[in-house]
């Protein structure tokens, strides 16, 4: 029979255990284990279909478990992945790819050319729901000879191989997927990447174990826990309390505070994600003077210095310095006097301002609303009166697809393959569901570039488009985002310009 004394003894023991369980982990263990607090939840495990497939933020997790056809180095260069060689024939009517020998799936079976072909055919099939099917469907009629795959080009797509290292460009195991089905694969995913999945608790954590047979060499950390911590304050608390080794995408002021603490280090990297203001060519933005005045009136460096603690890179086109078509000679300088003159030429002044609406998210990107507030203040000084409308990002997508955005709308644009077609191309080509600029001149310039086989000519063409856009004020590029990563000093972290935080790019500090 349980006596009162027994109960009290057990209670005391329990209390002691609770307090032991909660002891601080300030002293980070330098060993085989690594804990990363990730900023998003992982909705699903198939990286080739559905919403998750086009979410750039979670590609780092996918890249830990799966291999892409072609890998991407931390500086965005394409490097051999499961494909060791790739290329077109002379007339761009065929492609040829060599599959790496010796690569294995997490279940130990070999990665074969059949897996690669099955993955490409599945991606190109409109019924599977691959959102990038419009690219994958441009090749077909595959043939295999040893480790070499050949395919016919149905429609030339200059960026085909770049997409092989981008969204949905993942190789999945044919035999395993067909044996377990889509739901079975979700429950127990198998890839050929550096880490294999041990346990997945949705909205909580993902436990990974090193894939010892990985073709790129076994990862430095044998065991990795990825905690899903979408709340920024909680992520700060995770590293501050010593419960995670690595956190990222935290407020810049917290980054500065944390990296100064003993036992912690910090690194910032400009990533392939920019802040911009879409211009919709509706009144009053059909007036070139108004558009250019709106551009020249913004002091981008001031926004970076005052609102982002100096973490950002000023840009004047939709290309960042890492992108293929970056042209440093294109400049739209801060010049409020010029903005005033341009507005005066159209009959506007601070006493008779031009008025329009600007839409923005609030809290979706660092200081997004605050930046727009500051910009509206800068505009007011030259004769632009803008009314701010705050909306959710989902509404932005809907309005943009329907070409009904306000005359000005803040957004961020990611482009981790660094190709101009996936920045200037899709953002500014009228028929694209992502563009709200319908000017025939820009459409006429971009149109021929979609299928341009001469790469130098294509890149030069996009640089010309960017120059024309800057002269027309058809969009307002603001800045390139900088990703802050804080980590324990027992860990070395290599950032990736795509922003994909990957455990296989981390190792114990040497």
């Amino acid at each position: 029979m349980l006596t009162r004394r027994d109960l009290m003894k057990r209670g005391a023991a329990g209390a002691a255990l609770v307090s032991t369980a909660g002891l601080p982990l300030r002293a980070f263990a330098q060993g085989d284990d690594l804990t990363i607090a990730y900023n998003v939840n992982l909705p699903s495990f198939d990286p080739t279909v559905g919403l998750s497939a086009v979410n750039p933020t979670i590609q780092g997790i996918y890249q830990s478990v799966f291999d892409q056809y072609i890998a991407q180095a931390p500086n965005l260069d394409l490097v051999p992945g499961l494909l060791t060689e790739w290329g077109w024939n002379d007339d761009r009517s065929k492609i040829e790819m060599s599959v790496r020998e010796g690569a294995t799936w997490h279940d130990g079976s070999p990665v074969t050319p059949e897996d690669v072909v099955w993955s490409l055919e599945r991606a190109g099939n409109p019924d599977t729901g691959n959102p990038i099917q419009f690219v994958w469907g441009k090749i077909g009629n595959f043939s295999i000879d040893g480790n070499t795959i050949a395919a016919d080009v149905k429609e030339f797509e200059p960026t085909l191989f770049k997409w092989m290292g981008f969204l949905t460009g993942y190789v999945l195991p044919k035999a395993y997927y067909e044996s377990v089905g889509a739901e079975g694969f979700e429950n127990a995913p198998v890839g050929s990447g550096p880490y294999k999945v041990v346990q997945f608790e949705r909205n909580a954590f993902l436990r990974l174990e090193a894939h010892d047979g990985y073709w790129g060499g076994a990862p430095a950390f044998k065991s990795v826990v990825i905690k899903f911590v979408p709340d920024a304050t909680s992520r700060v608390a995770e590293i501050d309390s010593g419960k995670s080794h690595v956190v990222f995408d935290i407020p810049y002021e917290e980054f500065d505070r944390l990296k100064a603490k003993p036992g912690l280090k910090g690194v910032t990297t400009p990533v392939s994600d920019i802040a911009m203001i879409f211009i919709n060519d509706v009144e009053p933005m059909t007036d070139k003077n108004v558009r250019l005045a709106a551009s020249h009136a913004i002091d981008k460096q001031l926004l970076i210095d005052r609102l982002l603690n100096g973490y950002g890179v000023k840009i004047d086109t939709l290309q960042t310095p890492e992108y293929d078509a970056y042209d440093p000679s294109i400049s739209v300088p801060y010049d409020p006097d010029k903005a005033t003159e341009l507005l005066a030429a159209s009959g506007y002044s601070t006493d008779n301002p031009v008025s329009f609406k600007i839409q923005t998210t609030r809290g979706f990107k660092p200081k997004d609303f605050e930046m727009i507030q500051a910009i509206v203040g800068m505009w007011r000084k030259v004769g632009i009166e803008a009314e701010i409308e705050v909306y959710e990002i989902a509404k932005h997508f809907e309005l943009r697809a329907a070409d009904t955005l306000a005359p000005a709308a803040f957004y961020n644009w990611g482009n981790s393959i660094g190709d101009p077609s996936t920045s200037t191309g899709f953002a500014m080509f009228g028929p694209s569901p992502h563009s709200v600029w319908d000017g025939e001149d820009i459409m006429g310039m971009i149109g021929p570039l979609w299928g341009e086989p001469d790469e130098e000519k294509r890149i030069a063409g996009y640089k010309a488009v960017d120059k024309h856009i800057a002269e027309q004020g058809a969009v307002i590029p603001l800045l390139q985002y900088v990703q802050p990563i804080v980590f324990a000093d027992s860990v070395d972290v290599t950032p990736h310009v795509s922003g994909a935080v990957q455990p296989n790019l981390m190792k114990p500090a040497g």
Partner: protein
Amino acid sequence: MNILRAIATRIATTLVTLFGVAVIVFVVIRVAPGNPIAMMLPPGASEEDIARLTALYGLDRSIPEQFVIWLGGVLQGDFGTSISLRQNVLTIVLGRLPATLELSLLALGIAIVLGAALAFVATRWRETPAEAGVDVVNGIALSVPDFLWGLALILTLGVAWPIFEISGRVSPTLDLPFVTQFYLVESLLRLRLDITLNLLDHMIMPAVALALPLAAVIAQLLKASLKETIRQDYVMLARTKGFSESRVILHDAMRNALLPTLTLTGVQLTFLIGGTVIIERIFSYEGLGNLAIDAVINRDLPLIQGIVILFAVLFVGINLAIDLLYAILNPRLRHG
């Protein structure tokens, strides 16, 4: 007979309520700005791609058509497939429900114990500084919203003095030999106290954050009720028998004073469960609330519908249970 008739009536009205909730939710989330197709459009998607994706998710039909199809499925137990998670909605939602229920019930338990203790102190030492102190504590607990309590707890007991875990429901390194998602209950039944303690280590802070405002409400109401009850003749009689004031309050006054508090606690419990949405997000707790936020961000219409319907079932179920409990505890209703 009266109780049976009352139950039948309540169940009938409950079904009407649930139908109403289903209609409202279905329509509202479809007319609200933002649709899932626009969110998943890749760069370069053509009109045909948009049409294909829209048809794939059945969003090319009219809202009444979509509703009839969805309702037909629900009546057969099929709540559809989540757009973002690509799994059966009912399976997902029922899989998460235990985590939220355990957290809510733990918070409720803490709120009741804390609220009752405060009410007892304020009643036992009424019209003294102790009562004034309880009123101040109540005022603070009520005026600070639960999510701020959550952040305050994280910064104090999670960071400054790292006693409790900040995120998650259980440590990722623990192997859970469980067959249900009721981890706390199952760990107790299996006498796996190591897991129980690990779970509590993760649940204490979110549970306390949820419990504090409710504890204040319970304390206020119970205190008022106790003060009224201790003036009743039967309580006076108990005093004349020489029992201590504490014994009189706990043994004689508390039972009757609890009745009005019970009803209010039922109503407040539904608010507490609603509060889990933000609290679970802050603490990265794998319950329905955390899931609901992702569902809304992704405009995952089937999942939002499933979660809201389940919340509605929970809420009306709790209210029904409270009404029945009240009828059982209140002799006038039981025999009337």
